[in-house]
C-alpha cells in the first residue's frame, strides 16, 4: 500500500512538474484514439436508422423494377406482376409506373427515377412524409436526401422535363437505395411527362414470410441474364445505403493507422526527452533505495497513466464526433445518434494507446533504471553517436551546414523519427491533392448530385483527418526541434565560443530538421500514392498535375523552416557562458 502511494506521488508529482510535455503527450494519444474510435464506431452505423426507416415506411423485403430493354427483354409485365403470388410472398404493393425524368433546379439538371403514386397509403412501401403533403396534380414529392443535396424546400418550383412543378412534400423510403435520385408524382402527371411514346417501367414491392430469406428470394426469381426485371433485397438496399459510411470508415481506418504511426514517432521523441531529463531523478531514487525494476515501473506508470487519460479523452471525443461526420444521410429517418461503441472497440482503442506509450517508454525506462547510481546522479548527457562519414562530409559544408549535419549525425534515431513524421504528413497532403483530382468514389458525374453529395461528405472526413495529421506532425516537428535544442545546448554553446555566429547556430539547428524534411518530402510523394490506393482510390487513374506534386517539396521545406525557426532561434540565443559554466 505504501509503495503504491509512493508510486502515485512520484507519478503525479512529475506530471505536474512537466505540464506542457504531459499535455502534449495526452493530446497526441487523444487524437490517435479519437480517430481510431471513429473508425471503430462506424461499423454498422447505418443499421439502426435503416431499421427505423424500414419499420416506419413498411419497407418491402424485396423491391423489383420491370425495365424492358435496360436489363433484358425476356419476360413480360404480367410475369413480373405474378411475383405477387410467388411462394413466400405475404403482401405486395404496385406495380407503380416508373420513368426517367429530368429535374432542373437553379442550373442543375438531374435525371431522376420518378414513380407514379396517387397515394402514400400503400400496404407495402409507404413513403413517410417528413415535410409537406403527398402528390397532387402539378405537385411533386422529393426523396429527402435528394432534396437536401439540391437544397429544395416545400413551395419551391422545379422543372420536370421542361414543365413547372411545385414541391409539395419531402419523404423518406427504404424501398430503393439512395444512389438514385427519387421523386414521386401522380400517375397522370408521370405519364404526361413521359411523352407521347412513354417508355414506362414498373416498380413492385413484396413482403415475404421470411424477411431474412429476401436475398435468396431475389436470386431465385431474378431469372436469367436477359430477364427484363431486377429484384433487390432489403439487405442489398441497406448495404448500398451504408456505402458512404463504408468509404468514410475506410478513410478513417487509413487515417488512424497513419495517426498511430505519427503518434509513435512523436511520443518516442517526447518520452525520450522526458527520460533524458529524468536521469538525475533516477539517481536520486536509486540512492534512496529504489530498485531498477521499481524505477522502470515509475517511469512506465507515468506514461501509461497519461496514455489512459488520453484514451478516455480520445474515446469520448471520437464517440461524440461520430454522428457529426457520419450522418447516415437524409435518406434515412433520424440521425445515427452517437453510435453504440462495442466494448471490444474501447478495449482496442485503450490497447493501442497503451501499446504506443509502452513501446516508446520501455527502452528508455529500462536504460534509465540500469544506469549506475553515481552516473545518474552526475546527470550525464546521453552519449551522442559518431558517424565518421557524415562528420567528414560536414567539413566541406561551412559553418551552418557543418553544425546541421553534425547535429543530425549525433542523434540518428531522432532524425529517423522526424523523417517518419514528416513523410506521413507529406503523404497525407499528396493523397488529399490526388483525391481532389480523382475522387475516391469516382462519381463526379455531371448531374449525379447524390454522388457529389456523398463525395462532399467523404471530402469532409478527409479534410478533418488531414488537419489532425498535419497538426500532430507540426507538434512533432516543433518538439523534435526543441529536443535537439536542449540536447545540443553544450555543443552549440561551444560552437559559439569557438566563433560560430548566432545565425549560423540558428540555421544549423533548423537545418538539422530541414535536411531530414527534404528526404521526407521526396519519400512522401510515393507514400501519398500508396495512402491514396489504400484509402480506396486508383492512383493510376488519378494523374495529378506533376507541378503540384513537385511544389509539395519546397512547400514542405518552407513549412518546416517556419515551424523550427523560433525554437532554433531561442536555442541559438541561450547565454553561452551560462551553458558552459553549468556543464
Amino acid at each position, binding site marked *: 500500500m505504501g509503495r503504491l502511494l509512493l508510486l502515485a506521488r512520484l507519478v503525479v508529482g512529475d506530471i505536474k512538474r512537466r505540464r506542457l510535455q504531459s499535455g502534449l503527450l495526452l493530446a497526441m494519444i487523444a487524437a490517435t484514439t479519437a480517430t481510431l474510435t471513429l473508425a471503430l464506431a462506424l461499423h454498422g452505423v447505418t443499421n439502426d436508422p435503416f431499421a427505423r426507416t424500414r419499420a416506419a415506411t413498411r419497407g418491402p423485403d424485396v423491391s423489383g423494377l420491370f425495365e424492358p430493354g435496360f436489363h433484358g427483354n425476356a419476360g413480360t409485365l404480367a410475369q413480373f406482376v405474378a411475383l405477387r403470388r410467388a411462394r413466400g410472398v405475404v403482401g405486395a404493393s404496385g406495380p407503380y409506373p416508373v420513368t426517367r425524368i429530368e429535374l432542373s433546379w437553379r442550373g442543375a439538371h438531374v435525371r431522376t427515377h420518378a414513380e407514379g403514386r396517387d397515394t402514400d397509403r400503400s400496404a407495402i412501401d409507404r413513403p413517410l412524409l417528413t415535410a409537406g403533403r403527398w402528390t397532387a396534380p402539378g405537385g411533386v414529392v422529393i426523396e429527402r436526401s435528394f432534396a437536401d443535396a439540391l437544397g429544395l424546400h416545400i413551395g419551391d418550383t422545379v422543372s420536370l422535363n421542361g414543365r413547372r412543378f411545385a414541391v409539395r412534400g419531402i419523404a423518406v423510403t427504404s424501398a430503393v437505395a439512395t444512389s438514385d435520385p427519387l421523386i414521386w408524382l401522380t400517375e397522370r402527371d408521370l405519364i404526361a411527362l413521359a411523352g407521347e411514346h412513354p417508355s414506362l417501367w414498373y416498380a413492385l414491392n413484396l413482403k415475404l414470410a421470411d424477411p431474412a430469406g429476401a436475398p435468396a428470394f431475389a436470386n431465385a426469381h431474378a431469372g436469367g441474364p436477359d430477364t427484363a426485371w431486377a429484384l433487390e433485397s432489403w439487405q442489398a438496399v441497406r448495404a448500398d445505403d451504408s456505402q458512404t459510411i463504408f468509404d468514410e470508415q475506410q478513410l478513417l481506418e487509413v487515417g488512424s493507422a497513419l495517426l498511430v504511426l505519427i503518434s509513435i514517432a512523436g511520443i518516442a521523441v517526447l518520452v525520450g526527452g522526458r527520460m533524458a531529463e529524468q536521469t538525475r531523478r533516477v539517481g536520486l531514487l536509486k540512492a534512496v533505495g529504489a530498485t531498477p525494476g521499481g524505477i522502470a515501473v515509475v517511469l512506465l506508470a507515468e506514461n501509461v497513466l497519461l496514455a489512459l487519460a488520453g484514451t478516455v479523452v480520445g474515446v469520448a471525443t471520437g464517440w461524440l464526433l461520430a454522428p457529426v461526420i457520419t450522418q447516415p444521410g437524409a435518406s434515412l429517418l433520424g440521425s445515427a445518434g452517437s453510435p453504440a461503441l462495442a466494448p471490444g472497440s474501447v478495449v482496442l482503442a485503450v490497447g493501442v494507446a497503451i501499446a504506443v506509450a509502452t513501446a516508446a517508454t520501455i527502452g528508455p525506462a529500462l536504460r534509465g533504471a540500469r544506469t549506475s547510481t553515481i552516473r545518474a546522479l552526475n546527470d550525464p548527457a546521453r552519449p551522442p553517436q559518431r558517424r565518421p562519414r557524415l562528420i567528414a562530409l560536414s567539413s566541406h559544408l*561551412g559553418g551552418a551546414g557543418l553544425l546541421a549535419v553534425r547535429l543530425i549525425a*549525433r542523434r540518428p534515431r531522432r532524425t529517423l523519427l522526424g523523417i517518419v513524421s514528416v513523410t506521413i504528413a507529406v503523404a497525407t497532403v499528396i493523397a488529399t491533392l490526388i483525391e481532389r483530382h480523382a475522387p475516391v468514389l469516382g462519381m463526379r458525374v455531371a448531374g449525379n448530385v447524390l454522388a457529389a453529395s456523398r463525395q462532399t461528405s467523404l471530402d469532409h472526413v478527409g479534410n478533418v483527418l488531414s488537419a489532425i495529421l498535419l497538426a500532430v506532425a507540426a507538434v512533432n516537428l516543433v518538439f523534435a526541434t526543441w529536443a535537439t535544442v536542449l540536447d545540443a545546448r553544450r555543443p552549440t554553446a561551444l560552437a559559439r565560443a569557438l566563433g560560430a555566429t548566432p545565425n549560423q547556430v540558428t540555421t544549423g539547428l533548423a537545418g538539422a530538421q530541414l535536411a531530414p524534411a527534404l528526404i521526407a518530402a521526396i519519400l512522401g510523394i510515393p507514400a501519398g500514392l500508396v495512402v491514396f490506393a489504400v484509402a480506396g482510390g486508383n492512383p493510376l487513374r488519378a494523374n495529378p498535375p506533376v507541378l503540384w506534386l513537385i511544389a509539395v517539396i519546397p512547400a514542405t521545406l518552407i513549412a518546416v523552416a517556419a515551424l523550427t525557426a523560433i525554437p532554433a532561434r531561442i536555442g541559438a540565443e541561450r547565454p553561452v557562458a551560462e551553458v558552459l*559554466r553549468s556543464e
Partner: protein
Amino acid sequence: MHEKTSVLSAQGLRKEYGKGAALVRAVDDVSLDVAPGESVAIVGPSGCGKSTLLYLLGGLERPSAGTLALEGRQLEQMPETGLARLRRHALGFVFQAFHLVDELTALENIELPALLAGSAPRAARERARELLDQVGLEDRAEHLPSALSGGQRQRVAIARALANAPLVVLADEPTGNLDSTATTEVLRLFGQLHAGGQTLVVVTHDERIAATADRLITMRDGRFVGETKLAGGTARGLTEMAGLEG
C-alpha cells in the same frame, strides 16, 4: 594610454546579476591591460569572479558597465555576430571542463574552430595535425575524448584554442580537473606558448601555474586586490620549483 600598447584592455569593467536586495556584483570595477606576448594570471578563491571576468574578456558575456577593447576594437557594444567573428580569429579558449565534442576525434576537435572560421577542410586538417604534434599527441589523432586521459584532453583543448592562431588565449582553470602529472604536461605547454610569444590570460587557483606568468593579479569579491610582477617565470623553472619535474 594603455590601449595603444595593449592587445586587450578593460576599464571599469562590472558585471551584475539580479536586482535590488538580490543584486550580486560578480565583477566590480576591474581594469586590466594585457600587452602583446604577456602572460597574466588571475588568482583568487572560488566564487571571487575570476571565471566571469574571463568570459567578459572573451565576449561570452556582456558587461553591465565599463569598456572592453581587443586590439583597439570596442567589444562591449559590438553585435553578437561581430563578437563571434572576432572570437574566431582573435581569441582562443581553454576551459576547466575541456569542453571537447564527445563524438569527434582529437584531430576533428582541433580543426573545428578553423572549419567554423571558413578554412578549407584540407588546410584545417593540416593545421590540426601540426598542433597535435605541438602538444605531443600525434599518436592520439583518431582517439575520441573518452579514450584520452584528463591531461591529454586538456592538451587537445589547448591545441584547439590555437587553431586559428589567436591574439590572446583565455584559459579558465586549465589544471582544475587534472592530477599532478597532467598538470605538469599542461604547465609545460603553457610555458612553451609563453616562450613563443603567445598572449595568455589564465584564471587559476593553482599557484604553480600562476607562477609561470609575467604578472599575477589577485582577485577577491569581484575586485582586483593585488598585483605582482613576476620576473621571467618560466614553466621549466617553476615546475622544477614545485618538484614536478618528471
